[in-house]
């Protein structure tokens, strides 16, 4: 994620959004290794069917998957209570000294909540229901907010996240146009 860890896989944009009782998440497909495009069609977003939760990760692939798995474990432990699972996951990082910092971030979106969770133990719930992570996060966020501020914004979050990610892909070199979208 951070461009200072050269040698690590980095760069991605994930945007999740909660709007009008619907939720959607979108992710691009590019895996970048230093200056090389390693893969163009990666899937970085998932749906946890058991809990009606959409998740996406950015950063190191192994770390991202580890973080996803831990989050899923916490979810089953807390019977699908997302805020609880997110906080418990972050708490583990503080208390368990054997857990290393994971160089990845998660976006978690459900119909009621949305969170950004980092492998360093931060949990953030955005005010406006737009969660963004990755190298093109700022662009996607600005685009989504611009779309929402127009007179007749689309009511379906899936449309907005796709459009925002397309714009981020046009600007950010670490994000490509192979966009996948999942909605609830």
């Amino acid at each position: 994620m951070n461009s200072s860890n050269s040698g690590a896989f980095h760069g991605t944009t994930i945007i999740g959004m909660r709007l009008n009782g619907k939720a959607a998440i979108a992710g691009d497909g590019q895996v970048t290794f230093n200056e090389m495009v390693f893969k163009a069609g990666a899937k970085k977003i998932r749906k946890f069917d058991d809990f009606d939760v959409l998740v996406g990760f950015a950063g190191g692939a192994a770390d991202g998957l580890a973080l996803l798995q831990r989050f899923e474990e916490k979810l089953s432990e807390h019977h699908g209570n997302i805020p609880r699972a997110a906080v418990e996951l972050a708490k583990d990082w503080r208390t368990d000294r054997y857990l290393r910092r994971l160089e990845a971030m998660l976006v978690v979106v459900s119909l009621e909540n949305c969170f950004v969770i980092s492998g360093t133990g931060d949990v953030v719930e955005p005010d406006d229901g737009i969660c963004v992570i990755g190298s093109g996060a700022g662009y996607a966020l600005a685009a989504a907010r611009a779309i929402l501020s127009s007179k007749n914004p689309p009511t379906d979050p899936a449309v907005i996240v796709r459009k925002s990610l397309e714009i981020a892909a046009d600007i950010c070199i670490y994000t490509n146009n192979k966009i996948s979208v999942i909605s609830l």
Partner: protein
Amino acid sequence: MFWTKNKGDKKAGTTIIGLVHSGKAAIGTDFDEAKKQGDEVGLVKSCPDFLIGFTGLCQATSIAENFVHKLDTREDFEETCREICQDWQTDEALCQIPGKLVALGRDCAYIITAGKADKVETGIVAIGPGEEYALAAIRAILAQPDVAESVEEIVKRAFKVAAGVCVLVNSNANIVSLN
């Protein structure tokens, strides 16, 4: 950190956003005399056929005025933009001055620095700390199916979005337009 932005390249200062769209142009700056940081200034100026924006050291404002004068007296807009960038690089007094100049005509947009005059094909120019966010916002607005707003309103909205994302941008922008 929320997302990856190298702290090292953080550009404090003024943001200028300009847009040329279907024969119309608007440009705005968030420069506020009361809140300015350091010596940097931003100014926008409207001339009969083009718009000018400038960010740089305040000693350099006279340079911007010179550029405006030069553009005012020449016929060919694009030619003059290229001339200005050459002067900026070769003239002994001018080349000391850091800054960026934005020039918008009715159908073209230029970002000019010392020795470089970039024509911006999309017509969206943004410089300063909020540039990326402004760029993304304007692209998103223009991609909407029914854009009924004037270019001035679009620039205003871009400032609002950029100010919401970036702490260095001030949402009170001074906007001038060319109709």
